[in-house]
């Protein structure tokens, strides 16, 4: 093995690439070549480091210095000053309130997180299986296959209390048990990587930054329930994730960690990728099953549940990316270790995608039950100067808003549900006083109307009518009765819709009505938008034309 003096970890997550990361990397390589340092400095492309807003990012070890917002022209200075002379370039380092923070361990954004799911993201090269193995990867699979029975594996997952990270929070061990009990020669594991919630990109970062953790989790799940095959359903909007998964599957097969007789045992398991084609509803598990089968992504009626009758009619366990990435850690370190994080009912950690009006946006992993305030202020650095926190939106279009009086709410499944919001997949959009809550509710409803598959009437017609009412209110034509109508309609849609999309679609409207009713009233009675977002003078033009977003 080659020994290097310096390891330069360049974030190659989609967001850093989009911010211009490739240009910097090329420039850095040129400079290193010029100074003949290519043998001393090891450049590694890693997955997402989390603080995406400050990208392109590079972490330099052994010091642990992190450079932010890199441009190609910065490469020369970094090489000449830091790599040659050992003087870190302060100008480009992480700063908080004008103070330069010398290393990762001293930056609150990193220091205050607990990384289980993101354990390897930003640390390893996701395109090299050896780096994953060097971090202890595939040890859990080895342990499961050689030291544990299928029942043991299910028991550990049950004991860990792991709950589905896709949003609903169903106990993973219980789901596995139900599939295990099905008497069927064919069973499937499906990884739901159709992350479509606006504001959520946690799964993308895991797939791009640590794809083997998902493959390992799936293979263990396959062993436990008795499946021979797994599907990863990835949305087509994530081409980089698809590429890295393809590489990971190929390497795992070559290493004998996937395919026939894994690790020399008689367990065989294969994984296939299925690429979506842009339909939000396919994140709903029964719609996803239809889509895997190549059909229109319309949901099916439950029961039968997927664990009874799933893909091609066979028992199927569908787990979210983040859920599966937790599995190797639980198997390797045990249920007790996992339970040492989080709360009694919500053990472990959760990754949140912090976005919106907050100083440091990015991916944040914290123990479940961490107060919202800690995430926004201690890790996210608070609200940009001059503004104040108004509300946070969790769970995207299925979730709700948490108003400022509940900023100390512990972020766990039950606490969020009691506020009318949901955990959801982990999207966390922060809003300040410049955001209009009626506009936000309308925004999500437009999304739902666009994405409703049209199969059931409450969702197809109901959400459209709710949107019409909101259009009316935000254009100054609303009436006080509209508020009751919204609530009545919302509750009916929740009760009567076929799948999770419709059952949760009214949440953004219902929670804003609950916590920000005064804003609705201001739009109706005073014909004013308190946040100056909605233009109330204009007439409502063509209410049915929801695709015309320029009217907002």
């Amino acid at each position, binding site marked *: 093995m080659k020994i290097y003096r310096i390891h330069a970890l360049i974030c190659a997550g*989609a*967001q850093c*690439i*989009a*911010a211009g990361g490739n240009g910097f990397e090329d420039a850095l390589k040129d400079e290193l070549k010029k100074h003949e340092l290519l043998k001393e400095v090891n450049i590694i492309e890693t997955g997402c480091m989390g603080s*995406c*807003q400050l990208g392109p990012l590079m972490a330099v070890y052994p010091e642990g210095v992190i450079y932010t917002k890199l441009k190609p022209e910065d490469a020369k200075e970094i090489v000449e000053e830091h790599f040659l002379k050992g003087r870190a370039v302060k100008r480009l380092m992480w700063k908080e309130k004008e103070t330069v923070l010398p290393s990762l361990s001293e930056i609150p954004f990193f220091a205050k997180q607990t990384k289980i799911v993101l354990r390897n993201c930003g640390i390893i090269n996701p395109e090299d299986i050896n780096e994953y193995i060097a971090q202890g990867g595939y040890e859990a699979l080895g342990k499961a296959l050689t030291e544990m029975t299928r029942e043991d594996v299910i028991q550990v997952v049950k004991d860990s209390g792991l709950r589905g990270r896709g949003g609903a929070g169903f106990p993973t061990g219980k789901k596995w048990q139900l599939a295990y009990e099905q008497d069927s020669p064919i069973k499937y594991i499906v990884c739901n990587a159709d*992350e*479509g*919630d*606006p*504001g*959520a*990109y946690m799964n*993308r970062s895991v797939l791009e930054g640590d794809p083997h953790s998902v493959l390992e989790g799936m293979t263990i799940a396959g062993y436990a329930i008795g499946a021979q095959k797994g599907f990863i359903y990835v949305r*087509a*909007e*994530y*081409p*980089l994730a698809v590429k890295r998964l393809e590489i990971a599957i190929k390497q795992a097969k070559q290493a004998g960690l996937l395919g026939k007789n894994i690790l020399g045992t008689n367990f065989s398991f294969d994984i*296939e990728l*299925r*690429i*979506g*084609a*842009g*339909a*939000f509803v396919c994140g709903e598990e029964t719609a996803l099953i239809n*889509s*895997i*089968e*190549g*059909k*229109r*992504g*319309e949901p099916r009626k439950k029961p039968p549940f997927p664990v009874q009758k799933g893909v091609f009619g066979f028992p199927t366990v569908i787990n979210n990316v983040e859920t599966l990435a937790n599995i190797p850690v639980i198997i390797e370190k045990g249920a007790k270790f996992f339970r040492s994080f989080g709360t009694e009912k919500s053990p472990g950690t959760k990754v949140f*995608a*912090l*976005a*919106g*009006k907050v100083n440091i*946006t*990015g*991916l944040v992993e914290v123990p479940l039950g961490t107060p919202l305030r800690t995430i926004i202020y201690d890790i996210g650095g608070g609200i940009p100067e001059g503004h104040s926190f108004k509300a946070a*939106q969790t769970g*995207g279009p299925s979730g709700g808003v948490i108003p400022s009086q509940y900023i100390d709410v512990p972020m766990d499944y039950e606490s969020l549900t009691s506020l009318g919001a949901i955990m959801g997949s982990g*999207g966390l*959009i922060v*809003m300040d006083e410049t*955001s209009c809550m009626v506009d*936000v509710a309308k*925004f*999500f409803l437009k*999304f739902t109307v*666009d*994405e409703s*598959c049209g199969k059931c009437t409450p969702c197809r017609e109901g959400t459209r009518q709710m949107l019409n009412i909101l259009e009316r209110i935000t254009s100054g034509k609303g009436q006080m009765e509209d508020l009751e109508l919204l609530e009545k309609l919302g509750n009916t849609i929740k009760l009567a819709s076929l799948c999770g999309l419709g059952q949760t679609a009214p949440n953004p409207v219902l929670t804003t009505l609950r916590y920000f009713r005064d804003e609705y009233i201001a739009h109706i009675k005073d014909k004013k938008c308190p946040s100056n977002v909605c233009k109330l003078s204009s007439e409502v033009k063509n209410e049915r034309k929801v*695709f015309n*977003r320029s009217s*907002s």
Partner: protein
Amino acid sequence: MKEKSLIDLLHDVQESNPKNYVSKDLAKKVAETSNLSLSKVYGVATFYTMFSVTQRGKHIIRVCRSLSCHLANGESILNKLKEVLGIDIGETTSDGEFTLEESSCLGMCSIAPSMMIDDVPFGNLKEEDIEGIIKKFKEGAL
């Protein structure tokens, strides 16, 4: 051996078509290979937003319309694109280079506003960046 689903086949034929859409001829071919009726194929092709049954440009621009991008004034990026390209959402430039589309969320919320052109992601967009990006794409520099 991987069995291709109807969705996989549609992705394949659409990619093979320089005009970026599932034409009637292609749909017929897919129907024949997969032993399905043309209406089934059409049903799937029209369900998913990434498939098109009408002609599109060489490059597909997808502008993110999620809440994070909305809060970051993503509207101005969309308007600038419309202005630079001289087309509205769903339309194709007269030279056949670009089609402008929306996406519900591209998952790049931390670098909002964002867009993708084909497989290339762009973030932290400013109005003044748009012209340069389009120009570079036309020249094949990206």
